């Protein structure tokens, strides 16, 4: 991992047209500004990780498909 120190108003350039700037630091909170090409998606990591967890939970199995068919049949009765 690359470790760098930055002050307020200083930034990092990541190749590919991405700039991350420290806008403000106060009370243990760092406010960052991210400029990136439109095709680059930026996510908060904790949300990104949760989505991966949720996608993994969504991986189906055949008993699941059997159950939803049974449930839908019950509802249609």
């Amino acid at each position, binding site marked *: 991992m690359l470790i760098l120190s930055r002050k307020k108003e200083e930034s990092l350039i990541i190749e590919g047209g991405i700039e991350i700037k420290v806008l403000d630091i106060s009370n243990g909170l760092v406010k960052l500004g991210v400029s990136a090409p439109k095709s680059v998606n930026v996510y908060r990591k904790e*949300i990104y990780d949760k989505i991966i967890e949720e996608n993994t939970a969504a991986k189906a199995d055949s008993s699941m498909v059997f159950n939803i068919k049974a449930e839908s049949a019950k509802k249609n009765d």
Partner: protein
Amino acid sequence: MIINTEVYGEVSYKDEDVIRFEEGLFGFEDEKAFILMDIEETTYKLLQSTKTEELYFVVMTPFAFHESYDFEVPDAIMEQLDIKALDHLDVLSLVVFKDPIQESTMNLKAPILMNNKTKKAKQLILNEDFPMRFEFLKVEE
């Protein structure tokens, strides 16, 4: 082409039926090609990987279950998916089944957007504050 599936056995499909996720799905980045099949007599669909037999998801259109499910699709995404008319855009939500089934959830935070003409698709994380675990079967009652 023919793939073997756990749910339907051998399934034949055409190249133009293949839904292409350029970046895969979150957590499944190597899975870029899927086919979509109706689960008979239900409103659910099965999103089956063409590469991995045991990888499939249950998905469905979310709009019937959540009255205020509106979100902004960024222009860059519309461009990436080549969507030129709104009726070319399909939205699907991944479903997680629970026991009891009434506690099953649908992911409204990270829907799949698909161009139903070109079959280009992408899973998006919305900025809007929608739940990742929306208990869609409870609302119906």
